[in-house]
């Protein structure tokens, strides 16, 4: 069942267009991550859904009903703000109790509700503290608890892990999916951390240039990015690119990288002669082959479980390869190697539109 639907939603401030004609549907209980860089309007989208700002045009429907004329307090959404937005003059417990009290719950119900969600988020020991006495992690959990307390149908989480330290962020990334599933709410989760997006999402909606450029499962986004932009946003280190053109002859279809012909899937034949951007993910670069694209290892950077090599072809094209650190014989700087590209991590994009060509 569709719980939340957004139809041709636009928002502009004066002549400045934040986004234009957004469409999105979320099923009950689904976790949809809104992913995009800063300034793309992710937070504004959440505010529009919560009702604290009004869209310039378009329709937001919750549970099948248009909510344009419904005040924020009657929309049945919970929201956690990036800056926490706790009420400084109320204790953590009273902060969490706010939505329960507003709903007119009896005192014992309020207490029970607060304790339940506080236990779940492991903040039951700091409930009597004022917000200023809480650590950032505790503030973030209190804000989350407040959003969850009244068990809203729709939960809007605005980059809740942005302002917490790396260790807690890692823990919460593991914990949150379970917590959110338990709540049963439809979740819209805003983040600009692709790992967080991949870890949490049922589907990811990538917001860029005022549009959703791709809305798909994390796997699809990673394996089949719609555009070069999307391919660049997901992956660390990010995808290697080179501007080239597709050519076909009797031997098959190839691109020219650093002066060397590199064979690509024959399916690209239809696009022969087109100017393209060739992309290959660093983890799809194999340097153990004894033929292929000749390159020299310029630098080797070990990053825990992966080791990243910076490679350079004789003609000067630089690209990265990411190998498991456990791999046998990782080349030394200065070594001459041959690179081959696994087909799954190789994408070819139209140079003009940036769209991925279907091979």
């Amino acid at each position, binding site marked *: 069942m569709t719980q939340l639907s957004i139809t041709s939603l636009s928002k502009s401030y004066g002549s400045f267009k934040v986004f234009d004609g957004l469409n999105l549907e979320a099923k009950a209980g689904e976790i949809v991550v809104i992913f995009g860089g800063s300034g793309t309007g992710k937070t504004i989208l959440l*505010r529009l859904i*919560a*009702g*604290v700002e009004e869209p310039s045009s378009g329709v937001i429907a919750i549970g099948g009903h248009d909510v344009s004329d419904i*005040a*924020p*307090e*009657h*929309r049945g*959404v*919970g*929201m956690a*703000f*990036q*800056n*926490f*937005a*706790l*009420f*400084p*003059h109320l204790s953590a417990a009273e902060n969490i109790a*706010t*939505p329960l009290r*507003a*709903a007119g719950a009896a005192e014992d119900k309020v207490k029970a509700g607060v304790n339940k969600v506080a236990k779940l988020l492991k903040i039951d020991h700091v409930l009597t503290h004022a*917000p*200023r*006495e*809480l650590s*950032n992690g505790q*503030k973030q959990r209190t*804000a989350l608890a*407040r959003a969850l307390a*009244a068990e809203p149908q729709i939960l809007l989480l605005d980059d809740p892990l942005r*302002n917490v330290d790396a260790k807690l962020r890692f823990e919460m990334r593991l914990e949150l999916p379970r917590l959110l599933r338990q709540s049963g709410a439809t979740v819209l989760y805003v983040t600009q951390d692709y790992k967080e997006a991949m870890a949490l999402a049922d589907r990811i909606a990538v917001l860029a240039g005022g549009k959703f450029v791709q809305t798909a499962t994390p796997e699809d986004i990673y394996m089949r990015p719609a555009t070069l932009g999307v391919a660049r946003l997901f992956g660390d280190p990010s995808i290697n690119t080179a501007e080239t053109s597709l050519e076909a002859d009797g031997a098959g279809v190839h691109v020219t990288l650093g002066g060397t012909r590199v064979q690509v899937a024959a399916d690209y034949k239809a696009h022969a002669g087109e100017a393209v951007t060739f992309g290959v993910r660093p983890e799809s670069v194999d340097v153990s082959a004894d033929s292929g694209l000749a390159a020299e290892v310029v630098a080797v950077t070990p990053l825990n479980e992966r080791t990243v090599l910076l490679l350079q072809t004789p003609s000067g094209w630089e690209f990265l390869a990411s190998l498991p650190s456990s791999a046998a014989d990782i080349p030394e700087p200065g070594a001459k190697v041959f690179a081959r590209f696994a087909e799954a991590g190789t994408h070819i994009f139209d140079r003009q539109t940036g769209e991925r060509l279907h091979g």
Partner: protein
Amino acid sequence: MDHTSTFEKTLRGVLITLVLVFFLFPIVWIFLMSLQTNETILRIPPSLAFTPIIDNYTALITGQLRTAAGSLQLNFMQNMFNSVLLSVCSVAVSLVLGVPAAYAFARFKFRLGEDIAFTLLSFRFAPALLVLLPLSLYFKSLGLTNTYVGLIWVYQLICLPLILWIVRGYFEDISPDIEHAYRIAGNSWWQTFRKISIPLAKPGIAAAGLLAFIFAWNNFVFALILASADKQPVTVGALAFVTASGIQYGQIAAAIIISITPTLALALYAQRYLVEGLSMGAVKG
């Protein structure tokens, strides 16, 4: 770590003492004057050796001023009552009008909003004498001359801009997200204003209220022109001490001591509200 040397400590002590003496000496001196007769006050050289008397205070409270030329009626206590009534009512009216207005100016952008706010502020820098003549004419034709209502109305020129501009700043400092969070949690706009905005701006409202009270209390010229003896506050009432037989320094000093007591007490009481920091740590900076 403490890098302050003994010299610095001593210097700091001396400087603080100098500042305190500078600011407190007049008050102490006036207090001493209030306990003396005109003769001991005016002797040369002045001396700290005198027998304290409370005649000045009894004269003010009973309303009987005895001078060399005979006995004189004083209505200082009536002036005192007028001061309290005018100041309290003016500040109350200003708060009722000014706090919601300050919120509107802080939160909503509307046509001419800035112009209206600035016009209100400009009342603060226009000299009072500029508006007094037209005002006194209007007051006559409206029948407001020598009424409390009229004076409280005019006092809005003093109190309202002050409260509006100070409180506006405090409202602007509250993150709109805090208010949004309260609304999303299921509360109406009005509940949010009452339960979130007002409590968070409380230090500002207290400070603005206190300042407005002091300004209203100290006002002289409006009441001098627009009211007669029975409605005038202490500031104007003090003129009565300049009598035909000379200036009654002792009574003036006693009157000053009595008239600064309410504002002093209020300032001491409100001090704890003036301490900021209530909103620290609620919003990640």
